[in-house]
């Protein structure tokens, strides 16, 4: 019995890019890019080393948060953020349902489909913060501009996912309801709604979550909410207040993520 033909060594074949030439080429390209990119960075190490002391103060502030001395501002910012989140989510959902139905290819005629899809594309391609800059310029500072921003962003998100969901809905059920002589509205009500409603509820809760997180950001450009309070605290170098605000944001996000996960599990 001989084992001489049996290979003694085995090397795992490459997984992603099999062709050796491509691997070499991509490797060289990546190296060249890294050298160029790192070469074009201008880092002021002196400034960084000064900053490390400040960073230490921030970490200390984070570990010993000060909830009390700016309590009024924090409560005000938080109530603006939370109310803005809820109202914008509700309004966004209400607007995104008709747009989502309009953007489903299997339910609507071609022109309506194109109009609704382009609304979605515009809303999705613009960043919240850029929309917020414009809306603050138009509607003035404060949570109302933030509310409009978040509602607008919600439309793109929810309408797209809803439309994709409707397009994937089982065709058999649509046809069955259609065969009973149902009108278009009855088809929406009896064939589409039962199929997409659980997912729509889940997505709405998820969006509520996202909207709260975004509401913490758009305050930086003047659209109200906890972000404005945070920005002020950092500008004043009050790192203990900033740490307190960040901890509150993290806690609310954790709680809302956990509860929305529970509700989604219960609905689906």
């Amino acid at each position, binding site marked *: 019995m001989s084992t001489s033909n049996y290979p003694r060594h085995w090397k*795992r074949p490459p*997984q*992603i890019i099999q062709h050796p030439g491509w691997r070499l080429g991509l490797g060289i390209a990546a190296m060249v*890019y890294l050298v160029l*990119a*790192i070469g*074009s*960075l*201008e*880092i*002021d190490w002196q*400034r*960084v080393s*000064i*900053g*490390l002391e*400040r*960073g230490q103060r*921030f970490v200390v502030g984070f570990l010993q948060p000060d909830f009390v001395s700016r309590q009024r501002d924090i409560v005000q910012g938080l*109530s*603006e953020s*939370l*109310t*803005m989140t*809820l*109202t914008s989510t*509700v309004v966004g959902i209400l607007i995104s349902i008709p747009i989502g139905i309009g953007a489903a290819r299997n339910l609507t005629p071609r022109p309506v489909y194109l109009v609704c899809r382009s609304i979605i594309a515009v809303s999705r*391609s613009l*960043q919240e*913060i*850029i929309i917020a*800059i*414009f809306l603050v*310029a*138009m*509607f*003035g500072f*404060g*949570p*109302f501009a933030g*509310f409009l921003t978040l509602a607008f962003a919600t439309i793109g998100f929810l309408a797209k996912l809803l439309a994709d969901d409707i397009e994937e809905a089982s065709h058999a059920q649509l046809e069955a309801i259609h065969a009973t002589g149902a009108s278009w509205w009855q088809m929406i009500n009896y064939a589409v709604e039962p199929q997409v409603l659980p997912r729509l509820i889940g997505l709405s809760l998820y969006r509520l979550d996202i909207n709260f*997180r*975004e509401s*913490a*950001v758009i305050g*930086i*450009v003047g659209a109200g909410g906890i*972000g404005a309070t*945070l*920005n002020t605290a*950092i500008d004043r*170098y009050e790192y203990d207040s*900033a740490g307190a605000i*960040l901890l509150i*944001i*993290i806690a609310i*996000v*954790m709680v809302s*993520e956990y509860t929305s996960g529970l509700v989604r599990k219960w609905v689906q």
Partner: protein
Amino acid sequence: MNEPQHYSQLWQWRTPRVQLLLWAGWLALVALFVWCWQVMTQDTIWAFVLDAPAQAADIGSRMVPPRWGYLPELMAPLWDTLNIATLGTLGGVIMAVPVAFLAARNTTPSVALVRPVALFIIVTSRSINSLIWALLLVAVIGPGLLAGIVAIALRSIGFVAKLLYEAIEETDARQIEAIAATGAGRAQVLNYAYLPQLLPAFCGISVFRWDINIRESTILGLVGAGGIGLKLQASLNVLAWPQVTMILLLILGTVVISEWVSARIRRAII
């Protein structure tokens, strides 16, 4: 029992009790909405809101046509923005891998001690937006590209680690056991059992995050963290609306291209 006049009297979807509860729930939601609306708008100056269409028309008329001559000046900031996104993703991914292995139930050294810490890192990183990270880092290490890169990296940890640890928990245990049964050490199990199962997901997640990071790095300049956002901030401050239009068009083009690239790569890998 009376003869039913119509079939609708025979069948109802929900019991009266459930129906009542549903109505109560909707009523509570509407009441909450109205209350929130009143709290939110108590400081709103309605004159500004009514004035908005006129303001919009005014800004709109100033924004067109975009100033095409500004384009060459934007190329250097655009290169910076791409670098922030790419190097930030790289740094974030490198830090996310160990966190993901510590957070996954089947690879963590201790479910009671290490896993909660790893999960807390993930939640912290995910719940703070990259713009807020940048705001903090600009205050700490000064304005510039480095603050942007670190902000993107810190934000990416949570995203990448969360998706990766879910992928690790879904790996096929039989393959891992088979490798372990050959007498492989821990590193070898990692290399020959986990890696082949995780590599496609890992590459997909990284490219996906890179695409998101391109989007986010375009605005980091608003708080001073370098890139094309700095130009946007400068143009907004002097109300140079034609330049703003130009920058927004460039951002839009970059985002569309990066989305296309990432979709192509992901389709090739997965």
